[in-house]
């Protein structure tokens, strides 16, 4: 009885799927596989030459690079993008001392809503404050960057590729997809998901910022530094995580070997090892 019922149920599902399959195949034979401009021209993010200092199991953040990246963020990105998950006190982790952190925080104005008067006032930033929001009233807010390195496929490689990837639309693209011309106000970038990004190229010329450590501020260098900095804002515990990981794996390996030896020992008479 149960098998008669199951036969019928099985054939019912199979028939419904076959129906979908037949109609789908007919549709496919008319239209062919989806062929979109994104599929044809989207490029996968790539790492900068030499990769990032924090790549791989033993990779670590390079504080000098993170400080340069913070400088690029402060002078360029922060005009539009906030870092609301990050507090000024967190900057201690990338090598700033207390006085420097207080000075950095004091440059910011932190908006505070006063429930007594209904006004939004602001106070000078303190080490305990988070980076303030960036608001363009009525124009929408550019995305917060605190987690962006974990919120995009490719992470820091994506940020680096995007920042250095602005280019003119290839002639081939316009020939194959004439309707895909980048609309006014948008900018062609093959690393962006739909190829046209609202953000104008932020890093346009070498020497746009002046690094205090003497590093030459090429566009490529600035893009690398800010990508590294944003990896830090997204994953500030990366160094500690990997360091702890090796200790944990070492201990587990030791315990597992001991466990395996005791297993062999206990089973010796049963298995004759």
């Amino acid at each position, binding site marked *: 009885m*149960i*098998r008669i019922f*199951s*036969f019928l*149920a*099985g*054939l019912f*599902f*199979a*028939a*419904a*799927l*076959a*129906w*979908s*399959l037949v*109609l*789908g*195949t007919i549709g*496919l034979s008319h239209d062919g*596989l*989806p062929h979109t401009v994104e599929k044809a021209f989207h490029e996968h993010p790539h790492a900068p030459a030499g990769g990032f200092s924090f790549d791989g*199991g033993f990779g670590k953040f390079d504080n000098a690079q993170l400080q340069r990246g913070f400088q690029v963020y402060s002078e360029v990105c922060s005009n539009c993008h906030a870092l609301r*998950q990050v507090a000024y006190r*967190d900057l201690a982790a990338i090598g700033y001392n207390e006085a420097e952190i207080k000075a950095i925080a004091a440059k910011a104005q932190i908006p505070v809503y006063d429930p007594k008067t209904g006004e939004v006032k602001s106070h000078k930033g303190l080490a305990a404050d988070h980076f303030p929001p960036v608001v363009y009233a009525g124009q929408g807010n550019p*995305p917060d960057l*605190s*987690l962006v390195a*974990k*919120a*995009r*496929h490719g992470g820091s490689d994506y940020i680096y590729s995007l920042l250095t990837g602005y280019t003119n639309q290839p002639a081939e693209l316009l020939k194959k997809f004439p309707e895909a011309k980048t609309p006014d106000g948008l900018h062609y970038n093959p690393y962006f*998901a739909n190829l046209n990004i609202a953000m104008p190229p932020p890093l346009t010329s070498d020497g746009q910022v002046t690094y205090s450590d003497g590093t030459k501020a090429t566009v490529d260098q600035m893009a690398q530094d800010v990508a590294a900095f944003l990896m830090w804002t*997204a994953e*500030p*515990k990366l160094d*500690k*995580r*990997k360091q*702890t*990981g*090796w200790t*944990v*794996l070492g201990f*587990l*390996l030791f*315990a*597992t070997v001991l*466990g*395996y030896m*005791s*297993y062999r020992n*206990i*089973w010796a008479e*049963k298995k004759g090892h």
Partner: protein
Amino acid sequence: MSFPWANDYKPSHPFMVWMDEKLPLPRFVYNAVGGGYPVPRNLNYWWNFGFLALICLGIQIVTGVILAMHYAANQGVAFDSVEHIMRDVNWGWMLRYAHANGASAFFVVIYIHIFRGFFFGSYKAPREMVWLLGVVIFLLMMATAFMGYVLPWGQMSFWGAKVITGLFGAIPLVGEPIQHWLLGGFAPDNAALNRFFSLHFLLPFVIVGVVVLHIWALHIPGSSNPTGVEVKTESDTVPFYPYFIAKDGWAAGAFLLAYCAMVFFFPNALGHPDNYIPANPMQTPAHIVPEWYFWPFYAILRAFTQDFLIFPAKLMGVLAMFSAILVWFLLPWLDRSPVRSARYRPLYRKFFYALLVDAAVLGYCGGSPAEEPFVIISQIAAMYYFLHFLVILPIVSSIEKPDPLPYSITEAVLGADDHAALAAKA
């Protein structure tokens, strides 16, 4: 329960004697996972995954309870409270990564455990109840994992919740009221987040309860084994302690090595980047995909693209997705072969491997965008999935000629000659 030759619990310390009279908990443990539980001596490493699943459940409960101390189930602050855990709570990043990857590890282990059951016929009499309870545990795990994924209130949390609760909307007539009742609103918001948090905390303890029943039901006939031949004599078994404690122990070490490598070195490899973007009801992600362990079922859901007879495509998809798991409940009665182990079932073995490949194909399609060629592939794969359980298995089990079985477990381990010698000695 258990076999007549099982070791008897003999407390030696006066306190344990006293304890045994008042509350025989040590006796219970001894008989359940100690020297008092005889286990077939020929279990292979596929039999370690039940124990590993227990470890996963333990990891999830311990890390989850601590995370709940720092998490705030309110749609205004849920996302930020998770970031608070990642940044400001001592070792919070480790707890959260251990919990998120612990869910994946749990499903890896459980899928192996389930396919172990498919291959070695663990669901067959007299262990049907063990199997049925196992399917219940799997359903509870899926519900728990789904609700847990909603809690960080990222983009995939929100849109995943919207899609999955939207499935109930496919039920004719009462679908929409049910959907609104489940969510406590017209779309996922604070009411949904709060109830999901409450249930996400509750269900793991329900799972613990069903696990106890699962192990209890297992201990009545005793464990199955790779030959599928039932235990006959004492020489077929060894006591659980120390033999299988030792084996499970080192297997647990090996498992934890792989798991910790994920937690500490690839913590986000199995997650979706979009879940690091706060939930935004006004912006739909390009591709809404669930976590990887739901992909095969998600592929089945999306394989139904056309209305069939009087059934709308969406309803068919929902029916099929739930049936894909519910069909496991019927398995003990669909597969009527008296031989348990696929080692001795040449024809069934081929279909088993076909199912394994089929599940992998469905998984791959479920994780891919809903476009060709993935739709067509998942339609073929889903068709095989249902035919496998509902049509092929009953037919195979009646036409197949199984290979000869060993006389006993001891014979399978030691060979026929040693077994004869042992029998002569006895």
